[in-house]
């Protein structure tokens, strides 16, 4: 058992991760649902009674309750992955990304004491929320995720993984959009935002 935990705890090779994601998608299809996460934002709106004012949310949210159960599981899985199956080292990114991030003032954890390398702690915390930088990255960023995924009717799981696997051309258009936005943000806007 201990060696199994140790085995799972190493950082996974990308091919292993990709195969695991594809397998999970097959299981979800067999279970009678689709592999797509962003519908959850809509489900939460519907659960909160938004259907009274906006017809998009006017449906019985209980038909979508499975996705909230799934996401509760995602949080539990995140807990297990970052504790029981914690990697021996922080996330190892390329030296050029490290150099760039350091040049714009973002610390990159080299030891576990500095962080596990998932989120930059000095940006993603409650005190940063009081700054313009924090508001833009977290509040505006979150808004864009919810607004954009509902407009495009899907996110990375629904379009990039499920849609492309099902050879859906519309999903390819959506993924092109994801990259236009991602590249503009990463190369043009974020360097400015990070220095605020």
């Amino acid at each position: 058992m201990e060696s199994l935990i140790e085995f799972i705890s190493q950082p996974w090779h990308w091919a292993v991760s990709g195969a695991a994601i594809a397998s999970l998608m097959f299981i979800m299809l067999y279970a009678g649902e689709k592999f797509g996460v962003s519908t959850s934002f809509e489900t939460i709106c519907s659960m909160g009674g938004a259907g009274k004012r906006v017809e998009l949310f006017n449906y019985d949210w209980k038909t979508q309750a499975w996705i909230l159960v799934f996401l509760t599981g995602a949080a539990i899985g995140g807990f297990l992955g970052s504790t029981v199956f914690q990697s021996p080292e922080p996330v190892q990114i390329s030296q050029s990304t490290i150099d760039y991030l350091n040049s714009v003032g973002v610390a990159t954890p080299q030891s576990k004491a500095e962080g596990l390398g998932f989120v930059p702690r000095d940006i993603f915390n409650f005190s940063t929320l009081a700054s313009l930088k924090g508001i833009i990255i977290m509040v505006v960023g979150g808004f864009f995720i919810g607004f954009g995924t509902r407009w495009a009717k899907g996110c990375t799981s629904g379009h990039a993984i499920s849609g492309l696997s099902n050879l859906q051309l519309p999903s390819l258009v959506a993924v092109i959009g994801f990259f236009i936005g991602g590249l503009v943000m990463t190369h043009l806007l974020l360097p400015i935002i990070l220095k605020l």
Partner: protein
Amino acid sequence: MKNIKFLFFGILFGIIMTKSEAVSWYRIQEMFRFESFHMYGIIGTAVVLGALGIFLMKKMGLTSYEGKPLKLQAKEMQVKRLLFGGTIFGLGWAMTGACPGPLYTLVGHGVWVIFVIIASGVFGAYVYGALRHKLPH
């Protein structure tokens, strides 16, 4: 109780997302800067194996365990909607370093401030719902 299996699938999802490091803000930066193959390897492998699997599932006429057709509806080609909505999502993805699934996974990492991003995402979805008749699709 019918939904309890999705709790288990969600746990798998959270572990996979964490161990693959796809929930790492640093990995997303690296991906959009084209400085590592890691994320492209993950998505590429998932799509190639996924396409092969779905092709075989269709070919064998596989149904869900309850005998219903697999949820593989064709997506509508609405270029404006996909491109504009996709671009807005991309901006948010690169800022927060997380797409919707990873947001919930990161809550499990104990990054409580992620709840603010999720709440903002729900609000964004609401505003889309309220404005959608005025937006190009």
